């Protein structure tokens, strides 16, 4: 933004001055910013069109869905697809399984992560940064790299084709996240509170759950949500460790969708799209409600380096 003084100081050819005057009118300003608005509209369209398309397909009856030319707006909107999906035992079971897995994983990762975060964020001891880097290194190495060993270990422990297999293996990517983020939250708290509590005779564990834990509640919400989303979205291990359809997670269900009305020749796309909407909407609502916190959690590592 240029100030009056510097505008006066700069030499201005006459045409440029006239242009500038034009720009100052509302219409001129709009015209000048038009490309910018076009760009924004394009970004919105690009980001949202696939969702719109899933929505329109979920509300279109099969008769219209499998017909050319394609209808860009459902001519006969219907709830049949949703009704089919929500009455499908297969899909509801998958929703329940995913909730159980993602919920337990999140809870475990938060409990272990906050204890570790307390140790790493509030105590000084040798091996502290080594432990932090150990955790960080876990996020770097690929999950696929340990698939075979996990597969044989899980089979030997008789956990193959159970939800436990997923709950354990998902700790690989959720635990480092909770440890890392909660450590930085714990470290950011002022020392005085803790010291006051110690002077009053509190034990370290009392300090932990009476003083520190309430203060890092926002951090718990953020990391909990990130862990939940990561567990909810995982596919590779679910595909490798689950076999029976009644143990499928939603992702497996959406890939191997068994529709009620679909046949061997026709993939039930309408129902699949309805299922994707059912899975996506809660995630979108959560994300939008907590967007500020998610952003803070996601970018914490990026800015601090």
């Amino acid at each position, binding site marked *: 933004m240029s100030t009056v003084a510097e505008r006066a100081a700069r030499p201005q050819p006459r045409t440029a001055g006239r242009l500038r005057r034009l720009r100052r009118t509302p219409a001129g300003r709009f015209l000048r910013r038009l490309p910018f608005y076009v760009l924004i509209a394009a970004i919105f369209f690009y980001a949202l069109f*696939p969702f719109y398309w899933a929505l329109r397909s979920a509300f279109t009856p099969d008769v219209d869905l499998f017909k050319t030319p394609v209808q860009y707006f459902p001519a006969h909107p219907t709830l049949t697809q949703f009704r089919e999906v929500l009455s499908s035992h297969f899909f509801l079971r998958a929703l329940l399984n995913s909730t159980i897995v993602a919920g337990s994983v999140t809870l475990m990762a938060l409990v272990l992560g906050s204890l570790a975060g307390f140790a790493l964020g509030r105590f000084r*001891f040798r091996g502290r940064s080594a432990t932090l880097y150990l955790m960080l290194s876990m996020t770097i*190495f690929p999950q696929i790299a340990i698939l075979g*060993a*996990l597969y044989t270990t899980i089979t030997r422990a008789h956990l193959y084709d159970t939800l436990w297999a997923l709950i354990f293996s998902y700790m690989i990517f959720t635990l480092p996240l909770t440890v890392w983020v909660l450590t930085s939250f714990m470290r950011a708290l002022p020392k005085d509170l803790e010291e006051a509590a110690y002077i009053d005779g509190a034990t370290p564990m009392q300090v932990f759950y009476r003083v520190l834990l309430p203060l890092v509640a926002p951090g718990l919400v953020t990391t909990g949500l990130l862990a939940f989303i990561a567990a909810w979205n995982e596919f590779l291990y679910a595909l490798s460790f689950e076999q029976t359809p009644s143990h499928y997670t939603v992702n497996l269900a959406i890939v191997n969708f068994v529709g009620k009305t679909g046949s061997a020749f026709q993939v039930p796309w309408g129902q699949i799209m309805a299922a994707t909407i059912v899975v996506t909407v809660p995630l979108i609502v959560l994300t939008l409600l907590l967007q500020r916190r998610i952003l803070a959690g996601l970018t914490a590592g990026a800015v601090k380096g």
Partner: protein
Amino acid sequence: MSTTEATSVARPRFRRRRLPRLQRRQRRLAWILLAPSLLVVALVAFYPLGRTVYQSFTNQQFLALEPTKWIGLANYFGAAGLIHDSIFRDAIVTTVKFTVITVFFEFVLGLIIALVVNSNFKGRGVMRAVMLVPWAIPTVVSAQMWNWMYNDIYGVINDALLRLHLIDHGVAWTAQPSTALASVAAVDIWKTTPFVALLLLAGLQVIPSDLYEAASVDGASKWQQFWRITFPLLRPAILVALIFRTLDALRVFDVFYVLLGQRLGTQSMAIYNQSTIVQTGDVGYGAAISVAIFLIISVFVVIYVTFLRVEEQ
């Protein structure tokens, strides 16, 4: 405290390292608090990692009749080893191509979006929220959404292109070898560009605005400001975003599985690895593939980390 001769002789050597009692107690507590996490990490990550390396030197088969044998480096360099495996070679080529394409487009598009969102306009908050949405949904779900849009007969992409007369008959985007990789890349770019944009946006927002004011006082154009201020100061954020994305792209699995299945010729490294272990039950050979993937990814990590270190100096 004991006062025997032996300890009092030994004590002077240790005195310097001895910590105050409170600190010692704290240290012990810290390790107790860390113990459950470390146990889990050891059990689910480091034990399997070590075991994978061990398995890669054996001929272990899932549900095999004969006992597992140590076969040394045969999985890597034997007659039927990795170096002669053309499927694996194809998988490496496919994955590297995919990585280069997606990381490039995600970075360019992500930077444009970040710059747009960083400038002031109405609806900026909405836009930032919208950007989070593709990131939040499962990759499998977004891949299925695109799979339907790619449908050769009833897909919207074919329909739109036909209406615009850009093609004269429906294209089977995911089935056709010439478009398969591009169609997978497009889904990944759609899904992850917002994430890259958010990382870059976080970097943009810590650049102090007086730098731009000073530059425009000195008569620098917007273009000059971008190359002289924004770009150099954004470098750490750019590198972090590139590292994240490259590592993710190299281990890509979900989009390939949903859109292309396990079709030969268009497998990513992870797809080939998973099918070797789970479908074929070839645990030993699969472990060797895992180790190879791990090494390939490590090479990229080392390159990036050296870059970062050079940056810091």
